[in-house]
Protein backbone atom coordinates (compact mmCIF):
# COMPACT_ATOMS: atom_id res chain seq x y z
CA UNK A 1 0.00 0.00 0.00
CA UNK A 2 2.94 2.33 0.74
CA UNK A 3 6.52 2.07 -0.50
CA UNK A 4 8.83 4.77 0.75
CA UNK A 5 12.32 5.05 -0.65
CA UNK A 6 14.89 7.36 0.92
CA UNK A 7 12.24 9.90 1.88
CA UNK A 8 13.91 13.00 3.31
CA UNK A 9 12.87 16.50 4.29
CA UNK A 10 15.14 19.38 5.23
CA UNK A 11 13.73 22.69 6.42
CA UNK A 12 15.63 25.89 5.76
CA UNK A 13 19.05 26.34 4.26
CA UNK A 14 22.56 25.75 5.57
CA UNK A 15 23.89 26.57 8.10
CA UNK A 16 20.46 26.74 9.79
CA UNK A 17 19.03 23.74 7.94
CA UNK A 18 17.12 21.18 9.99
CA UNK A 19 16.91 17.62 8.69
CA UNK A 20 13.47 16.61 9.95
CA UNK A 21 13.25 13.31 8.05
CA UNK A 22 16.34 11.43 6.89
CA UNK A 23 16.15 8.75 4.24
CA UNK A 24 13.10 6.80 5.42
CA UNK A 25 12.73 3.51 3.53
CA UNK A 26 9.88 1.18 4.41
CA UNK A 27 6.81 -0.56 3.03
CA UNK A 28 3.31 -0.89 4.45
CA UNK A 29 1.15 -3.86 3.43
CA UNK A 30 -2.61 -3.48 2.82
CA UNK A 31 -4.77 -3.91 5.91
CA UNK A 32 -2.07 -3.18 8.47
CA UNK A 33 -2.27 -0.73 11.35
CA UNK A 34 1.20 0.79 11.32
CA UNK A 35 2.39 3.17 13.99
CA UNK A 36 5.07 5.82 13.58
CA UNK A 37 6.45 5.86 17.10
CA UNK A 38 8.74 8.49 18.51
CA UNK A 39 8.89 11.40 20.92
CA UNK A 40 7.67 14.88 20.00
CA UNK A 41 9.93 16.37 17.35
CA UNK A 42 11.19 13.00 16.05
CA UNK A 43 9.85 13.60 12.53
CA UNK A 44 6.55 11.72 12.67
CA UNK A 45 4.31 14.60 11.64
CA UNK A 46 6.70 15.63 8.87
CA UNK A 47 6.64 12.04 7.59
CA UNK A 48 2.84 12.13 7.65
CA UNK A 49 2.81 15.44 5.78
CA UNK A 50 5.19 14.07 3.16
CA UNK A 51 3.09 10.95 2.61
CA UNK A 52 -0.11 13.00 2.33
CA UNK A 53 1.38 15.49 -0.20
CA UNK A 54 1.21 18.41 2.23
CA UNK A 55 4.98 18.68 1.97
CA UNK A 56 7.30 17.97 -0.92
CA UNK A 57 10.28 15.76 -0.07
CA UNK A 58 13.74 17.24 -0.34
CA UNK A 59 14.89 13.90 -1.74
CA UNK A 60 13.57 10.38 -2.11
CA UNK A 61 10.00 9.50 -2.98
CA UNK A 62 7.17 7.13 -2.15
CA UNK A 63 4.19 5.48 -3.74
CA UNK A 64 0.96 5.60 -1.78
CA UNK A 65 -1.97 3.42 -2.87
CA UNK A 66 -0.15 2.82 -6.14
CA UNK A 67 0.48 6.48 -6.99
CA UNK A 68 3.80 8.28 -6.90
CA UNK A 69 3.94 11.25 -4.51
CA UNK A 70 5.91 13.41 -6.90
CA UNK A 71 4.56 12.30 -10.28
CA UNK A 72 0.88 12.07 -9.31
CA UNK A 73 0.11 13.93 -6.09
CA UNK A 74 -3.53 14.36 -7.10
CA UNK A 75 -3.85 10.61 -7.60
CA UNK A 76 -2.47 10.12 -4.09
CA UNK A 77 -4.95 12.65 -2.67
CA UNK A 78 -7.91 10.84 -4.21
CA UNK A 79 -6.88 7.61 -2.50
CA UNK A 80 -5.98 8.72 1.01
CA UNK A 81 -7.74 10.03 4.08
CA UNK A 82 -5.96 12.32 6.51
CA UNK A 83 -6.81 13.37 10.04
CA UNK A 84 -4.49 16.13 11.21
CA UNK A 85 -3.03 16.38 14.68
CA UNK A 86 -5.55 18.33 16.72
CA UNK A 87 -8.30 17.53 14.22
CA UNK A 88 -9.99 19.60 11.57
CA UNK A 89 -13.54 20.22 12.75
CA UNK A 90 -14.24 23.94 12.43
CA UNK A 91 -15.94 26.04 15.06
CA UNK A 92 -19.00 28.17 14.52
CA UNK A 93 -20.82 26.15 11.89
CA UNK A 94 -22.84 22.94 11.70
CA UNK A 95 -20.63 19.91 11.15
CA UNK A 96 -23.19 18.48 8.74
CA UNK A 97 -22.33 21.29 6.32
CA UNK A 98 -18.63 20.58 6.68
CA UNK A 99 -19.16 16.88 5.97
CA UNK A 100 -21.21 17.69 2.86
CA UNK A 101 -18.52 20.09 1.67
CA UNK A 102 -15.86 17.44 2.18
CA UNK A 103 -17.86 14.83 0.27
CA UNK A 104 -18.45 17.19 -2.64
CA UNK A 105 -14.77 18.08 -2.80
CA UNK A 106 -14.15 14.39 -3.46
CA UNK A 107 -16.38 14.67 -6.51
CA UNK A 108 -19.68 13.43 -5.11
CA UNK A 109 -22.88 15.02 -6.37
CA UNK A 110 -25.07 16.62 -3.72
CA UNK A 111 -27.45 13.61 -3.44
CA UNK A 112 -24.46 11.24 -3.29
CA UNK A 113 -22.85 13.46 -0.67
CA UNK A 114 -25.99 13.47 1.48
CA UNK A 115 -26.33 9.68 1.29
CA UNK A 116 -22.68 9.12 2.10
CA UNK A 117 -22.69 11.63 4.96
CA UNK A 118 -25.70 9.86 6.48
CA UNK A 119 -23.85 6.52 6.24
CA UNK A 120 -20.73 7.88 7.88
CA UNK A 121 -22.68 9.62 10.64
CA UNK A 122 -24.26 6.26 11.44
CA UNK A 123 -20.93 4.46 11.27
CA UNK A 124 -19.37 6.84 13.79
CA UNK A 125 -22.58 7.09 15.82
CA UNK A 126 -22.72 10.90 15.69
CA UNK A 127 -25.89 11.50 13.64
CA UNK A 128 -27.56 13.26 16.56
CA UNK A 129 -24.64 15.70 16.85
CA UNK A 130 -24.35 16.69 13.20
CA UNK A 131 -26.30 19.93 13.50
CA UNK A 132 -23.92 21.19 16.19
CA UNK A 133 -20.63 23.01 15.70
CA UNK A 134 -17.21 21.86 16.84
CA UNK A 135 -16.90 24.00 19.97
CA UNK A 136 -20.01 22.45 21.51
CA UNK A 137 -18.62 18.90 21.41
CA UNK A 138 -16.32 16.96 23.73
CA UNK A 139 -12.83 16.01 22.56
CA UNK A 140 -13.92 12.43 21.88
CA UNK A 141 -16.98 13.55 19.90
CA UNK A 142 -14.87 15.92 17.82
CA UNK A 143 -12.44 13.10 17.11
CA UNK A 144 -15.28 11.00 15.73
CA UNK A 145 -16.14 13.83 13.34
CA UNK A 146 -12.46 14.18 12.40
CA UNK A 147 -12.39 10.51 11.48
CA UNK A 148 -15.68 10.81 9.62
CA UNK A 149 -14.29 13.71 7.58
CA UNK A 150 -11.18 11.69 6.74
CA UNK A 151 -13.10 8.60 5.64
CA UNK A 152 -16.06 10.01 3.72
CA UNK A 153 -14.61 9.12 0.33
CA UNK A 154 -13.81 5.51 1.27
CA UNK A 155 -10.02 5.80 1.04
CA UNK A 156 -8.07 2.52 1.08
CA UNK A 157 -5.47 4.11 3.34
CA UNK A 158 -5.88 6.65 6.10
CA UNK A 159 -3.25 8.69 7.95
CA UNK A 160 -4.00 9.65 11.54
CA UNK A 161 -1.58 12.14 13.07
CA UNK A 162 -1.55 11.68 16.85
CA UNK A 163 -5.21 10.59 16.85
CA UNK A 164 -5.62 10.44 20.62
CA UNK A 165 -3.46 13.37 21.72
CA UNK A 166 -5.26 15.34 24.42
CA UNK A 167 -8.10 12.85 24.88
CA UNK A 168 -9.15 11.34 28.19
CA UNK A 169 -8.70 7.57 28.67
CA UNK A 170 -12.31 6.78 27.78
CA UNK A 171 -12.19 8.76 24.53
CA UNK A 172 -8.82 7.20 23.66
CA UNK A 173 -10.28 3.72 24.02
CA UNK A 174 -13.18 4.73 21.75
CA UNK A 175 -10.77 5.93 19.07
CA UNK A 176 -8.79 2.67 19.35
CA UNK A 177 -12.02 0.70 18.82
CA UNK A 178 -12.89 2.80 15.79
CA UNK A 179 -9.45 2.27 14.28
CA UNK A 180 -9.71 -1.48 14.80
CA UNK A 181 -13.17 -1.45 13.19
CA UNK A 182 -11.86 0.44 10.18
CA UNK A 183 -9.20 -2.18 9.61
CA UNK A 184 -11.14 -5.24 10.68
CA UNK A 185 -14.52 -4.60 9.08
CA UNK A 186 -13.66 -2.22 6.27
CA UNK A 187 -10.16 -3.29 5.23
CA UNK A 188 -8.67 0.20 5.58
CA UNK A 189 -4.90 0.43 5.94
CA UNK A 190 -4.12 2.75 8.85
CA UNK A 191 -0.90 4.68 9.36
CA UNK A 192 -0.90 6.58 12.63
CA UNK A 193 1.68 8.55 14.51
CA UNK A 194 1.88 8.41 18.26
CA UNK A 195 4.17 9.16 21.12
CA UNK A 196 2.08 7.05 23.50
CA UNK A 197 3.80 3.73 24.10
CA UNK A 198 0.62 2.06 25.39
CA UNK A 199 -1.19 3.09 22.23
CA UNK A 200 1.56 1.70 20.04
CA UNK A 201 1.52 -1.56 21.97
CA UNK A 202 -2.25 -2.00 22.06
CA UNK A 203 -3.26 -0.81 18.63
CA UNK A 204 -0.50 -1.30 16.09
CA UNK A 205 0.37 -4.46 14.13
CA UNK A 206 3.69 -2.96 13.29
CA UNK A 207 5.82 -0.07 14.49
CA UNK A 208 8.24 2.18 12.67
CA UNK A 209 10.36 3.69 15.42
CA UNK A 210 11.48 7.17 14.37
CA UNK A 211 14.39 8.87 16.11
CA UNK A 212 15.71 12.26 14.99
CA UNK A 213 14.20 11.74 11.54
CA UNK A 214 15.70 8.29 11.01
CA UNK A 215 14.11 4.86 11.06
CA UNK A 216 15.57 3.28 14.18
CA UNK A 217 13.44 0.13 14.29
CA UNK A 218 10.78 -1.71 12.31
CA UNK A 219 8.67 -4.64 13.51
CA UNK A 220 5.66 -5.71 15.52
CA UNK A 221 5.66 -4.64 19.18
CA UNK A 222 6.42 -8.27 20.13
CA UNK A 223 9.25 -8.63 17.60
CA UNK A 224 10.83 -5.40 18.76
CA UNK A 225 10.75 -6.50 22.39
CA UNK A 226 12.39 -9.82 21.50
CA UNK A 227 15.19 -8.09 19.63
CA UNK A 228 16.46 -6.49 22.81
CA UNK A 229 19.09 -8.83 24.32
CA UNK A 230 17.36 -10.78 27.08
CA UNK A 231 13.96 -9.50 25.90
CA UNK A 232 12.42 -6.15 26.81
CA UNK A 233 9.60 -5.77 29.28
CA UNK A 234 8.02 -2.87 27.41
CA UNK A 235 8.41 -0.49 24.48
CA UNK A 236 10.16 2.10 26.65
CA UNK A 237 13.01 -0.38 27.01
CA UNK A 238 12.91 -1.09 23.28
CA UNK A 239 13.11 2.61 22.46
CA UNK A 240 16.01 3.11 24.85
CA UNK A 241 17.86 0.14 23.33
CA UNK A 242 17.27 1.33 19.76
CA UNK A 243 18.12 4.99 20.28
CA UNK A 244 20.03 5.33 23.53
CA UNK A 245 17.40 7.79 24.77
CA UNK A 246 14.14 7.58 26.67
CA UNK A 247 11.01 7.71 24.52
CA UNK A 248 9.76 10.70 26.49
CA UNK A 249 12.73 12.89 25.56
CA UNK A 250 11.45 15.72 23.39
CA UNK A 251 13.49 16.34 20.26
CA UNK A 252 13.98 19.78 18.72
CA UNK A 253 11.30 20.25 16.07
CA UNK A 254 11.69 22.59 13.11
CA UNK A 255 9.51 25.69 13.38
CA UNK A 256 8.35 25.80 9.78
CA UNK A 257 5.90 22.91 9.71
CA UNK A 258 3.71 24.57 7.10
Amino acid at each position, binding site marked *: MIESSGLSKTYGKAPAAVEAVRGLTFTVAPGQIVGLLGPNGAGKSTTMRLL*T*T*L*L*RPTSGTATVAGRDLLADP*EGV*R*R*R*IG*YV*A*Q*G*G*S*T*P*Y*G*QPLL*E*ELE*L*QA*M*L*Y*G*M*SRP*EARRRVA*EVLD*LFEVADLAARS*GETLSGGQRRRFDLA*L*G*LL*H*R*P*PVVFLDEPTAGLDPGARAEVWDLVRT*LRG*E*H*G*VTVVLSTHYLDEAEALCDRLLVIDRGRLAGDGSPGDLRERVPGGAADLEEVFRWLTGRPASEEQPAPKAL*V
Partner: protein
Amino acid sequence: MTSVNITLGARNGVVRDTWVILRHNLRKTARQKIALLFGAVQPLLFLLLFGPLLSGLGSWQMLVPGLLVQLGLLSAGLAGFGIVFDARAGVLDRLRVSPTPRLALLLGQALGGTAVLLLQSALLVAVATALGLRPPPLGLVLAAVLLAVTGTGLAAISNALALVLDDAVFAPVMTTVMVPLTLLSGAFLPMSMAPGWLNALSAATPFRHTVEALRDLLAGDYLTPAVGLGTAVSVAFSVLCVALAVRIFNRLNA
Protein backbone atom coordinates in the same frame (compact mmCIF):
# COMPACT_ATOMS: atom_id res chain seq x y z
CA MET B 1 -17.05 1.01 3.23
CA THR B 2 -15.25 -2.05 1.87
CA SER B 3 -15.45 -0.88 -1.74
CA VAL B 4 -12.95 1.77 -2.69
CA ASN B 5 -14.69 4.14 -5.03
CA ILE B 6 -11.86 6.17 -6.47
CA THR B 7 -13.87 7.30 -9.49
CA LEU B 8 -15.81 9.68 -7.27
CA GLY B 9 -13.23 12.40 -7.77
CA ALA B 10 -13.83 12.49 -11.51
CA ARG B 11 -16.17 15.45 -11.10
CA ASN B 12 -13.50 17.70 -9.62
CA GLY B 13 -12.67 20.78 -11.64
CA VAL B 14 -11.73 24.39 -10.96
CA VAL B 15 -15.14 25.90 -11.77
CA ARG B 16 -17.18 23.23 -10.01
CA ASP B 17 -15.00 23.13 -6.89
CA THR B 18 -14.76 26.93 -6.72
CA TRP B 19 -18.56 27.05 -6.68
CA VAL B 20 -18.77 24.32 -4.02
CA ILE B 21 -16.38 26.23 -1.73
CA LEU B 22 -17.96 29.60 -2.49
CA ARG B 23 -21.44 28.31 -1.66
CA HIS B 24 -20.11 26.88 1.61
CA ASN B 25 -18.52 30.24 2.45
CA LEU B 26 -21.71 32.12 1.61
CA ARG B 27 -23.63 29.94 4.06
CA LYS B 28 -21.01 30.75 6.70
CA THR B 29 -21.26 34.47 5.90
CA ALA B 30 -25.05 34.37 6.19
CA ARG B 31 -24.63 33.29 9.80
CA GLN B 32 -22.29 36.18 10.58
CA LYS B 33 -24.56 39.16 9.94
CA ILE B 34 -23.06 41.27 12.72
CA ALA B 35 -19.52 40.82 11.38
CA LEU B 36 -20.81 41.68 7.92
CA LEU B 37 -22.29 44.92 9.22
CA PHE B 38 -19.29 45.88 11.33
CA GLY B 39 -16.99 45.47 8.34
CA ALA B 40 -18.80 48.38 6.68
CA VAL B 41 -18.95 50.62 9.76
CA GLN B 42 -15.83 52.67 9.04
CA PRO B 43 -16.81 53.78 5.49
CA LEU B 44 -20.36 54.40 6.76
CA LEU B 45 -18.99 56.70 9.46
CA PHE B 46 -16.95 58.56 6.85
CA LEU B 47 -20.09 58.88 4.77
CA LEU B 48 -22.18 60.22 7.62
CA LEU B 49 -19.63 62.34 9.52
CA PHE B 50 -17.25 63.47 6.77
CA GLY B 51 -19.47 63.54 3.67
CA PRO B 52 -21.49 66.62 4.70
CA LEU B 53 -18.25 68.64 4.91
CA LEU B 54 -17.76 68.14 1.17
CA SER B 55 -21.10 69.49 0.05
CA GLY B 56 -19.41 72.16 -2.06
CA LEU B 57 -17.53 69.48 -4.00
CA GLY B 58 -20.56 67.43 -4.98
CA SER B 59 -19.90 65.24 -1.98
CA TRP B 60 -21.84 62.06 -2.72
CA GLN B 61 -20.73 61.61 -6.33
CA MET B 62 -17.15 62.31 -5.32
CA LEU B 63 -16.97 60.61 -1.95
CA VAL B 64 -19.02 57.41 -2.38
CA PRO B 65 -16.74 55.86 -5.06
CA GLY B 66 -13.78 56.54 -2.78
CA LEU B 67 -15.53 54.96 0.17
CA LEU B 68 -16.31 51.91 -1.97
CA VAL B 69 -12.59 51.49 -2.63
CA GLN B 70 -11.82 52.10 1.05
CA LEU B 71 -14.36 49.40 1.84
CA GLY B 72 -12.70 47.09 -0.69
CA LEU B 73 -9.32 47.59 0.97
CA LEU B 74 -10.72 47.07 4.47
CA SER B 75 -13.05 44.20 3.65
CA ALA B 76 -11.52 42.15 0.83
CA GLY B 77 -8.01 43.25 1.82
CA LEU B 78 -8.43 41.70 5.24
CA ALA B 79 -10.37 38.66 4.01
CA GLY B 80 -7.35 36.53 4.90
CA PHE B 81 -8.42 36.55 8.55
CA GLY B 82 -10.84 33.73 7.72
CA ILE B 83 -8.17 31.47 6.37
CA VAL B 84 -6.01 32.09 9.44
CA PHE B 85 -8.74 30.49 11.54
CA ASP B 86 -9.18 27.66 9.02
CA ALA B 87 -5.44 26.99 9.10
CA ARG B 88 -5.37 26.98 12.91
CA ALA B 89 -8.34 24.61 13.06
CA GLY B 90 -6.73 22.14 10.62
CA VAL B 91 -9.47 22.78 8.05
CA LEU B 92 -7.05 24.09 5.45
CA ASP B 93 -4.81 21.01 5.65
CA ARG B 94 -7.85 18.79 5.23
CA LEU B 95 -8.86 20.71 2.12
CA ARG B 96 -5.30 20.64 0.76
CA VAL B 97 -5.22 16.85 1.09
CA SER B 98 -8.40 16.60 -1.01
CA PRO B 99 -8.14 16.40 -4.82
CA THR B 100 -9.59 19.92 -5.11
CA PRO B 101 -7.47 22.08 -7.44
CA ARG B 102 -5.42 24.67 -5.53
CA LEU B 103 -6.85 27.43 -7.73
CA ALA B 104 -10.37 26.42 -6.66
CA LEU B 105 -9.39 26.49 -2.97
CA LEU B 106 -8.09 30.01 -3.45
CA LEU B 107 -10.88 31.33 -5.69
CA GLY B 108 -13.58 29.84 -3.47
CA GLN B 109 -12.15 31.77 -0.53
CA ALA B 110 -11.47 34.95 -2.52
CA LEU B 111 -14.91 35.07 -4.13
CA GLY B 112 -16.43 34.65 -0.67
CA GLY B 113 -14.58 37.86 0.26
CA THR B 114 -15.87 39.50 -2.91
CA ALA B 115 -19.46 38.56 -2.06
CA VAL B 116 -19.08 40.11 1.38
CA LEU B 117 -17.64 43.25 -0.19
CA LEU B 118 -20.57 43.55 -2.60
CA LEU B 119 -23.12 43.14 0.19
CA GLN B 120 -21.39 45.80 2.28
CA SER B 121 -21.13 48.06 -0.78
CA ALA B 122 -24.86 47.70 -1.39
CA LEU B 123 -25.47 48.84 2.18
CA LEU B 124 -23.15 51.83 1.73
CA VAL B 125 -24.81 52.84 -1.55
CA ALA B 126 -28.26 52.45 0.01
CA VAL B 127 -27.35 54.83 2.84
CA ALA B 128 -25.70 57.22 0.37
CA THR B 129 -28.83 57.16 -1.78
CA ALA B 130 -30.88 58.12 1.25
CA LEU B 131 -28.50 61.06 1.74
CA GLY B 132 -28.79 62.26 -1.85
CA LEU B 133 -26.65 60.08 -4.17
CA ARG B 134 -28.49 59.45 -7.46
CA PRO B 135 -26.53 56.82 -9.42
CA PRO B 136 -27.95 55.48 -12.70
CA PRO B 137 -28.82 51.74 -12.57
CA LEU B 138 -26.35 50.82 -15.34
CA GLY B 139 -23.63 52.78 -13.59
CA LEU B 140 -24.33 50.90 -10.40
CA VAL B 141 -24.10 47.54 -12.15
CA LEU B 142 -20.84 48.43 -13.90
CA ALA B 143 -19.41 49.83 -10.66
CA ALA B 144 -20.28 46.58 -8.90
CA VAL B 145 -18.48 44.58 -11.60
CA LEU B 146 -15.39 46.78 -11.34
CA LEU B 147 -15.45 46.56 -7.56
CA ALA B 148 -15.84 42.77 -7.73
CA VAL B 149 -12.80 42.49 -10.00
CA THR B 150 -10.66 44.58 -7.65
CA GLY B 151 -12.08 42.85 -4.56
CA THR B 152 -11.32 39.37 -5.90
CA GLY B 153 -7.67 40.28 -6.46
CA LEU B 154 -7.41 41.85 -3.01
CA ALA B 155 -9.11 38.92 -1.28
CA ALA B 156 -6.91 36.42 -3.13
CA ILE B 157 -3.65 38.09 -2.16
CA SER B 158 -4.93 38.67 1.37
CA ASN B 159 -5.67 34.95 1.78
CA ALA B 160 -2.28 33.99 0.42
CA LEU B 161 -0.40 36.48 2.62
CA ALA B 162 -2.33 35.28 5.65
CA LEU B 163 -0.81 31.85 5.08
CA VAL B 164 2.79 33.01 4.85
CA LEU B 165 2.82 35.80 7.43
CA ASP B 166 2.89 35.03 11.12
CA ASP B 167 -0.61 35.17 12.65
CA ALA B 168 0.41 38.01 14.95
CA VAL B 169 1.91 39.99 12.06
CA PHE B 170 -0.82 39.65 9.44
CA ALA B 171 -3.34 42.12 10.92
CA PRO B 172 -0.92 44.95 11.75
CA VAL B 173 0.89 44.62 8.43
CA MET B 174 -2.28 44.61 6.36
CA THR B 175 -3.99 47.44 8.21
CA THR B 176 -0.80 49.52 7.99
CA VAL B 177 -0.54 48.92 4.26
CA MET B 178 -4.22 49.74 3.70
CA VAL B 179 -4.04 53.26 5.20
CA PRO B 180 -1.55 54.77 2.69
CA LEU B 181 -3.20 52.88 -0.17
CA THR B 182 -6.56 54.39 0.79
CA LEU B 183 -5.13 57.90 1.12
CA LEU B 184 -3.20 57.64 -2.15
CA SER B 185 -6.28 56.43 -4.00
CA GLY B 186 -7.86 59.85 -3.56
CA ALA B 187 -10.77 58.22 -1.83
CA PHE B 188 -11.65 61.28 0.23
CA LEU B 189 -10.55 64.19 -1.99
CA PRO B 190 -9.66 64.36 -5.69
CA MET B 191 -5.93 63.90 -6.25
CA SER B 192 -6.05 66.77 -8.76
CA MET B 193 -5.91 68.96 -5.65
CA ALA B 194 -2.64 67.36 -4.53
CA PRO B 195 0.88 68.74 -5.07
CA GLY B 196 2.70 67.26 -8.06
CA TRP B 197 4.78 64.69 -6.19
CA LEU B 198 1.75 63.35 -4.31
CA ASN B 199 -0.33 63.26 -7.47
CA ALA B 200 2.44 61.30 -9.22
CA LEU B 201 2.76 58.88 -6.32
CA SER B 202 -0.98 58.41 -6.30
CA ALA B 203 -1.05 57.72 -10.06
CA ALA B 204 1.40 54.86 -9.48
CA THR B 205 -1.09 53.00 -7.27
CA PRO B 206 -3.88 50.94 -8.85
CA PHE B 207 -6.69 52.11 -6.59
CA ARG B 208 -6.46 55.75 -7.74
CA HIS B 209 -7.58 54.56 -11.18
CA THR B 210 -10.32 52.37 -9.75
CA VAL B 211 -11.70 55.31 -7.76
CA GLU B 212 -11.68 57.60 -10.80
CA ALA B 213 -13.41 54.97 -12.95
CA LEU B 214 -16.04 54.45 -10.26
CA ARG B 215 -16.68 58.20 -10.06
CA ASP B 216 -17.40 58.34 -13.78
CA LEU B 217 -19.56 55.20 -13.70
CA LEU B 218 -21.68 56.44 -10.81
CA ALA B 219 -22.06 59.77 -12.62
CA GLY B 220 -23.40 57.93 -15.68
CA ASP B 221 -20.31 58.57 -17.86
CA TYR B 222 -19.38 55.15 -19.23
CA LEU B 223 -17.10 55.71 -22.21
CA THR B 224 -14.43 57.92 -20.68
CA PRO B 225 -10.63 57.58 -20.55
CA ALA B 226 -10.86 57.21 -16.75
CA VAL B 227 -13.25 54.25 -17.08
CA GLY B 228 -11.00 52.63 -19.68
CA LEU B 229 -7.84 53.10 -17.65
CA GLY B 230 -9.49 52.17 -14.36
CA THR B 231 -10.92 48.98 -15.83
CA ALA B 232 -7.61 47.98 -17.43
CA VAL B 233 -5.63 48.68 -14.26
CA SER B 234 -8.17 46.88 -12.03
CA VAL B 235 -8.24 43.78 -14.25
CA ALA B 236 -4.44 43.70 -14.48
CA PHE B 237 -4.12 44.16 -10.72
CA SER B 238 -6.58 41.39 -10.01
CA VAL B 239 -4.99 38.93 -12.45
CA LEU B 240 -1.57 39.67 -10.97
CA CYS B 241 -2.83 39.19 -7.40
CA VAL B 242 -4.57 35.90 -8.20
CA ALA B 243 -1.49 34.59 -10.06
CA LEU B 244 0.77 35.56 -7.16
CA ALA B 245 -1.63 34.05 -4.64
CA VAL B 246 -1.82 30.76 -6.56
CA ARG B 247 1.97 30.68 -6.64
CA ILE B 248 2.09 31.20 -2.85
CA PHE B 249 -0.58 28.52 -2.35
CA ASN B 250 1.37 26.06 -4.48
CA ARG B 251 4.62 26.79 -2.67
CA LEU B 252 3.12 25.97 0.70
CA ASN B 253 4.18 22.35 0.27
CA ALA B 254 7.71 23.20 -0.85
